[in-house]
């Protein structure tokens, strides 16, 4: 450790004001931050000591998705690692360039986007598409709006939405039948051109063709689907961890799942032959993953608690509507983006109502 510290202290002057590598100061600070506690201290008041800062917040999300990542390696093979690396590398470059131009610190927020993005893609998507998607998501979805904490839409979802519209064929066909028994696909590197990559339709696609996959398979995760979204049980474990650490707000999660369940239940009751049952809809596709990890993003969801309830209800209802009434098989992505769009106005309406009531009382 001593050696590392010495190296940092030695190169430090050349990264600060007047040094040779002044432009790379954000990179230096990020590395220093990564290995040690930052040397710089806040000078101005107020000083708040709180164990949960942005960094901890982001770390919790990463811990929360680890079960899903490990499961995806088992189900879909080692390409997942390559996808995560590409996502981090390309998105990281965009992030670093912006930090250098802005002369700001590199923010930990990217660690979450870079991790979540591959998890919502088909498992054998070509790696260059992963790169294009994450670059678009980070650049347009986040950096143009001012970087971490100022984005209006979930960058990972913007990237995925962009890919879904730009390469619809690749985004709806690169499914792999999940590995089973013993080591699963842990020893395989499955790409779209692999011989043993048996392309198999996801439960949602099968449902459009009239066959309903058993819910128990979707709880375990032995179905095809996006990288991290298949195993319902593991998502719930990671998600409940987020709820307990208060990183994700339970109101959002409950209102999404409840409204989606109720609507799916009502539809199923009206025409059981045409609409799948409620429990099936909750475990199918990205519903759970979206509800726990995507929609709960504190930056892009409403601030007020009442706003969160309405936000969740809209996401749940729109998801079920898109799944059942449009040409798309999956609607979670679009629904959460729509939720992001209306989040600010929901807050505005809630605050407006409160103000009116306060004035009425006073």
């Amino acid at each position, binding site marked *: 450790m001593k050696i590392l510290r010495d190296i940092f202290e030695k190169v430090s002057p050349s990264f600060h004001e007047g040094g040779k590598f002044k432009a790379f100061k954000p990179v230096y600070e990020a590395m220093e931050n990564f290995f040690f506690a930052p040397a710089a201290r806040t000078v101005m008041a107020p000083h708040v000591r709180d164990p949960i800062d942005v960094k901890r917040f982001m770390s919790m999300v990463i811990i929360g998705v680890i079960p899903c990542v490990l499961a995806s390696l088992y189900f879909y093979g080692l390409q997942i690692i390559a996808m995560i690396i590409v996502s981090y590398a390309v998105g990281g470059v965009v992030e670093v360039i912006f930090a250098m131009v802005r002369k700001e610190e590199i923010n930990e927020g990217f660690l979450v986007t870079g991790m979540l993005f591959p998890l919502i893609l088909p498992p054998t998507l070509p790696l260059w598409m992963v790169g294009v998607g994450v670059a678009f998501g980070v650049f347009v979805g986040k950096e143009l709006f001012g970087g971490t904490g100022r984005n209006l839409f979930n960058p990972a979802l913007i990237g995925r939405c962009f890919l879904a519209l730009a390469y619809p064929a690749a985004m709806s066909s690169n499914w792999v039948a999940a590995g089973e028994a013993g080591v699963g696909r842990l020893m395989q590197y499955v790409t779209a051109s692999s011989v043993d990559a048996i392309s198999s339709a996801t439960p949602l696609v099968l449902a459009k063709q009239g066959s309903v996959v058993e819910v128990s398979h979707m709880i375990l995760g032995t179905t095809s689907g996006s990288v991290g979204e298949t195993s319902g049980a593991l998502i719930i474990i990671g998600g409940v961890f987020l709820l307990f650490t208060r990183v994700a707000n339970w109101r959002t999660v409950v209102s999404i799942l409840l409204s989606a369940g109720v609507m799916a239940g009502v539809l199923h009751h009206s025409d059981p032959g045409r609409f799948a049952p409620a429990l099936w809809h909750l475990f199918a596709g990205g519903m759970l993953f979206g509800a726990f990890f995507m929609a709960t993003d504190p930056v892009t969801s409403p601030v007020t608690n009442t706003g969160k309830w309405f936000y969740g209800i809209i996401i749940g209802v729109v998801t079920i509507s898109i799944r059942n009434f449009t040409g798309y098989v999956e609607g979670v992505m679009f*629904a959460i983006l729509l939720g992001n769009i209306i989040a600010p106005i929901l807050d505005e309406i809630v605050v407006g109502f409160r103000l009116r009531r306060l004035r009425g009382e006073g």
Partner: protein
Amino acid sequence: MNVNTEIWQGFVVCISAVFTNNILLNYFLGMCPFLGCSREVKTSVGLGFAVIFVLTSTCILNWLIYHYVLVPLSLEFFRFIIFIIIIAAFVQFVEMLLDRTSPLLYQKLGIFLPLITVNCAILGASLFMVIRNHSLIVTIGYGLGSGIGWFLAIIAMAGIRQKLANEHIPKGLQGPGIALIIAGLMALAFTGFAGVLQGN
């Protein structure tokens, strides 16, 4: 056609005009007030209601004039001029009404109320209704749906722009630049409704 099924069809067209064929986010009509008047929620709510009202009313007026005056006289090619004149007269009427009832709103809307006259969304809706051969009931649904769709889009936009931390956006993109990008991303999300209730 049965009146009941026609009302149902009008309802379907109305819903699809709000989401699937949103006049702003799918056809990109009515962009100027959308960009110019969306800085504040209160103003955009006022403008949104004005558009719902004007759009629905002018669609109905234009439908009546088109089918009972222009078609019998076989003057259909005249519809562009006639529609614009009717819209202009009607906006003038709304302006006078607002001036009397809500001077504050009138002041806030400023130049944008007369601008509704040349708002492509309003003329566009009237022309679409002719092209698609809507009946009167369906036209009411279509006008109402288009107006509501426009209204939803502009208040969402206004909420977003109020939340926007302007000083961190790259200099060249501040103002209309970032607003256009936001509109593009909103349209991206609205593609999810493609194919729902295709009732033109």
